[in-house]
């Protein structure tokens, strides 16, 4: 690892200012569980590494006017232990629990997970299925975008090098929405998802309403399965239809074929996981 300058601002404002000044020769470090691994191997060592792990503004999980706010600096462990998450988005707890091992979850942040933007990120599908949005702050102010618009490609987001992801917002309409996350890896812990998936839904009059299906590790970024959603939306709950939605989801993905898993296996897993997450969400839903 080549030498670099290390800075640790103590407020969001000074972090933004420093970013503005130092960009593009600066990189952000949160928990470091992704970035330090990279830094050890890359030839592209930045001039400055800015540690944001202590910024108070990036911490905390709160109920706000437009929903639930999760600071980008919140760790996976904090998510697992948070009562508001438990109340409003318990599928996130399950997703967080599948990430790495205890040590990784103690350090790794939700912001870091989203910004690293690997297709297999485990916090992505649930958040997408809950229509999450993100706040991004730069020297020109704050912008709010949908989470899916943050994802551009493998390890590529729409963040500019002078911008900070500050918070994730789960909109009010999604709070308490029945949802389920499923990760399929080669062992229980410390495993990369071969496929992961999340679904959320309401049931109104025995029919699917606001169904969201999101899958990861099978396309350049975490995606929403719009066709599968559309296929079920408004239809009566029916096992066969759910199964068909799983098959439709397969057509929306483009999994790779490598020694970890073949494309056809990944495709089959998509169908199985989508079906299972929808069925699990149905089980959670009030069926009035």
């Amino acid at each position, binding site marked *: 690892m080549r030498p670099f300058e290390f800075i640790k601002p103590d407020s969001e404002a000074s972090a933004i200012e420093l970013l503005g000044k130092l960009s593009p020769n600066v990189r952000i470090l949160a928990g470091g569980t992704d970035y330090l691994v990279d830094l050890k191997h890359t030839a592209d060592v930045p001039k400055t590494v800015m540690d944001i792990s202590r910024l108070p503004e990036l911490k905390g999980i709160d109920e706000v006017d437009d929903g639930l706010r999760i600071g980008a600096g919140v760790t996976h462990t904090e998510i697992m232990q948070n009562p508001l998450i438990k109340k409003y988005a318990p599928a996130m707890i399950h997703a967080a629990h599948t990430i790495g091992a205890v040590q990784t979850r103690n350090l790794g942040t939700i912001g870091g997970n989203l910004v690293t933007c690997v297709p297999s990120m485990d916090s992505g599908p649930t958040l997408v299925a809950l229509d999450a949005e993100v706040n991004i702050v730069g020297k020109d102010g704050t912008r709010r975008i949908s989470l899916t618009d943050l994802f551009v490609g493998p390890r590529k987001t729409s963040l500019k090098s002078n911008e900070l992801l500050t918070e994730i917002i789960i909109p009010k309409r999604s709070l308490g929405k029945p949802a389920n996350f499923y990760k399929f890896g080669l*062992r229980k812990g410390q495993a990369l998802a071969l496929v992961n998936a999340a679904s959320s839904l309401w049931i109104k009059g025995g029919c699917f309403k606001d169904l969201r299906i999101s899958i990861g590790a099978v396309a350049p970024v975490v995606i929403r399965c719009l066709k599968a959603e559309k296929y079920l939306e408004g239809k009566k709950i029916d096992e066969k239809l759910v199964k068909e939605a799983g098959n439709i989801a397969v057509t929306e993905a483009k999994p790779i074929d490598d020694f970890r898993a073949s494309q056809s296996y990944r495709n089959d897993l998509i169908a199985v996981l989508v079906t299972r997450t929808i069925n699990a969400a149905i089980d959670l839903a009030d069926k009035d």
Partner: protein
Amino acid sequence: MKNGVGQPVTRKEDPKFLMGRGRYVDDIDLPDLAYGFVLRSIHANAKIRSINTSEAKALPGVIGILTGDDYVSDGLGVIHAEINPNLLKGEAIQYPHAALVREYVKCVGAPVAFVVAETQSIAKDAAEIIEIDYEILESATDLSKVRSGNTPIVWEGMKSNVSFTYGMGDAEKVAAAFSDSAHIVKSTVVNNRITTNAMEPRCSIGIFEPGEEKFTLYSSNQRPNNARQAIANEIFEISEAQLRVISPDVGGGFGMKGSFYGEDVLVLWAARKYSRPIKWNSERSESFVTDSHARDVISDCEMSFDADGKVTGLRVHADYNIGAYVAPGGSISPMWFTLLLSGVYRIPAVEVVTRCHFTNTISTAPYRGAGRPESAFILERLMDMASNQLNIDPIEIRRKNLITSDEMPYQTALMFSYDSGEFIEIMDEAVKEANWSEFEERKKESESKGKLRGIGLACYLEGAAPFNERMEIRFDSGGTVTVVAGTHSHGQGHETIYSQMVSDFLGVPYESVHLVQGDTDKVPMGRGTVGSRSITVGGSALRLASDEVIEKGKKIAGHLLEVSPEDIEFNNGTFSVAGTDKSIDITEIAKRSHTPVMWPGELGMGLEGVGVFQSGPGNFPNGCQIAEVEVDAETGKVTLENMVIVGDVGTVINPLLLGGQIHGGLTQGIGQALFEDVVYEKNGGQLLSASFQDYTMPRADDLPFYDITSHPVPTKQNPLGVKGAGETGTVGAPPAVLNAVINALQSKGVTDIEMPATPEKIWLALRKAA
């Protein structure tokens, strides 16, 4: 007796390790320490056209850079393996290799240059700017292709890739048995390639004292005395007195650290060259491409049966992948494999041919089990296949063929004669423990949840306790005891178990026993720890050393109590005059034995004893394991629901430590069966499974609680009745688990699956069968 033999004593060494006070090689810091980094081949097979180190040498902080040419010009010797002449068929070809290669790299990870610098990162940075011009050649990494002769030749000039061939048994007798048989079960059995991943990666420090002309090597090694012998005699051609090898705390070895490695040579050589102590520390990613790998055997097997389901003959033609360079321990697994192919069964005629092939992969060498898991896997897969083909229940077909306890001692058709064992009783106990009779109900329950369920068993045996061993017991003038052990504990807990034994044998307090090991200047001779040998061979030597202490103690007691030594009795730490109340404690004897003047010369100086035990044919730990699995047919995922082991490791000295050995062994066996696989790129020869992301070792939450029962049948081969315990878990687990998985898939038409039985393989097998 508290803390005595047979007690579940907790480990003496645990507080140290749990509180981070262990002292591993990397914990050792020395004044003036410099760091070495090995630049390795990134190609599986290539000719080195040129190496340019000039820019790297100029980097500030670089002390020197060594290459294969320097190695030759400095006249250092090469690394090779010993091939067992009794098993060898035809000639053996090795390409003994230097600690740095020259001209060719023959596998990814082959050591090309050794960079020595003030810090490890400088050494790495320098390595990055060494220019090597490679001419890339075609490579051969896949054993299934290599055995069919469809690959390039690894070493130019050879006619085939076969390095050596081991053979045993009687081909004619087998042919005769086959022609008379009612059934023949045939299969090609694949034992996949795996790697150890000891918790502590390998690490070495070399020191050279120019005044004394003496080297010191700190190395994470299981057999320091063996390393000294080999490195002194074969590499540096110095007397063994000029090399001290110290293996301090070692974080797991499993056979992978059973021999020395090139890096041990490099740090010593560089220490002498640059007059600095040199440390080399493997990173985890480096360990994947430099620690020896293991297994990787494909065998064409045929087993013949009579009309009654009794085995009449076995033919195994096996191909082992030994890698590009024969490791010092490279011939050991093929040897045990060849010798143990009769297993627990009465097989009148056996023929084994084991061909060992060069490939463009990392060397293979022993890993927990070393040949024993490979042979047990074949026998137990064949038994299950026969059960299907002959339509005999898997338990019953084994019962027909297991050697009975009345037949002991049993001479196999290969080399070994088993002294003891109750194979059928053990199987029956395991079947009961696993509640086999109610399996169908559990299966129905799984099916009601949409899952498949399977149960499988494996009866197995292994050969343990090679070589002789020497142990020494010394009392100091304060009366405390030091055991100087030729064995080497690197996780096993010898300090605890030897303390238990000495405390039991000599009646001294458990707490007052200390262990010295792992330093060739302190342990004059010893064979280290491999092959489940320490408590059997080392422990027996300790018994003999204790007997010598008692004999000496009797002489001293006779002198002090003024009677003839013949009148002295020894019991639980006290020497007493028979029929009187005159007695003296062993601690007191020890103190008095150090009297400096006015002490009879014939009583020697101090109280000590040396025991040497010759293990002869060794012993044969055995057992039965039963695995039960549930399979998610949609994803192919296997959940191991239950794992039963009933094992015979002879007399149990410490059930807690035995449990630890069985747990670890089972987990490594299950790892191979379900999770772990070393994968090379089919054409380019790159190692693909080169980190824990893809080399999926199991974690605790992937495994059930194990149901472990001891069924001791003490061996007559040693005074303690102990059989080896280190490897039995690993030997039986792969076939038990695989048999269970295949049993679960049987109703869907799947009859075989290769290890590891990963979700995708199962998914694919189910689809193919449908």
